[in-house]
């Protein structure tokens, strides 16, 4: 069994209103030293497979096809054995 942990974030340069809102929220309750916040998604995908390489391939395909929208998002992932 493998677990892919995929992170999808808005591309750099695209304004992230949610990140800004979180930053404002944190600051309004007194947290300091925050230079910036960005909010994205994390997906944990359990895979019934053992071969790391083919899993790697598969997750790339999933991301390109569905999990991320390349117009506005970038993705990265790691695959762990579980």
């Amino acid at each position, binding site marked *: 069994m493998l677990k892919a942990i995929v992170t999808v974030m808005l591309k750099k340069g*695209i304004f992230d*209103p949610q990140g800004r*809102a979180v930053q404002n929220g944190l600051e309004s309750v007194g947290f300091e030293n925050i230079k910036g916040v960005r909010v994205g*998604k994390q997906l944990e995908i359990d895979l019934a497979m053992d071969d790391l390489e083919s899993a790697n391939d598969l997750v790339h395909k999933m991301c390109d096809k*569905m*999990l991320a929208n390349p*117009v*506005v998002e970038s993705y990265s992932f790691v695959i762990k054995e579980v």
Partner: protein
Amino acid sequence: MNWGVLLFPGSNCAEDCFHVIDKVLGKPVTYLWHKDTDLGDVDAIIIPGGFSYGDHLRPGAIAHLSPAMSAVKEFAEKGGLVIGICNGFQILTEARMLPGSLLQNRGLKFLCQDQTLKVDNIETPFTSEYKTDDVLVFPIAHNEGNYYAKPETIAEMEQNGQVLFRYCNPEGEISDVTNPNGSINNIAGIINRTGNVVGMMPHPERSSDNVLGLSDGKGVFISMLKYLEANKQN
């Protein structure tokens, strides 16, 4: 003229679009099912609003991969008229049938209000019924309507007259203050390069039945109808 309204699990404005074509326009209309690849003999396709697949992941992210969408692409490539409204717009951008993408509203909240708009390009099969000075009222109801595309893309679209609708105030002024969701250049609706695929966040169908006190949206459907009729005769 046969109209088709494409149904996904989670579409919730399909009946509304159906109602307008059927009862307001009085034209034949059928539902198209997302699992089908045969669209029958429709002349125009409406991809309605709603929350296809619950808007999970991203609005339109799952729906655009459905079998019916490949058929819609083929239909459009042959010049068929396609209009995506709200979630339909999101699906069309996910399918890359229209440029750009719709991000979350900058206010981070769902926005339901009667919104004033101006038409930017009246020389399309979707807007011929309007005048450039018209200030129209269409309801909006969305959480991800904040239109984004790369600056180069935007410049190109502006140059080609691909921006169809812009958010404005009741006086017709277009500025950041009159922008409800943060869309670049107040963009509310766009058209593809070949001029037969439209995506828009505002709901023309909700502004088509006089009983509800709004009627400006009817123009979109009547424009389409006139175009179809003119082209059928040729």
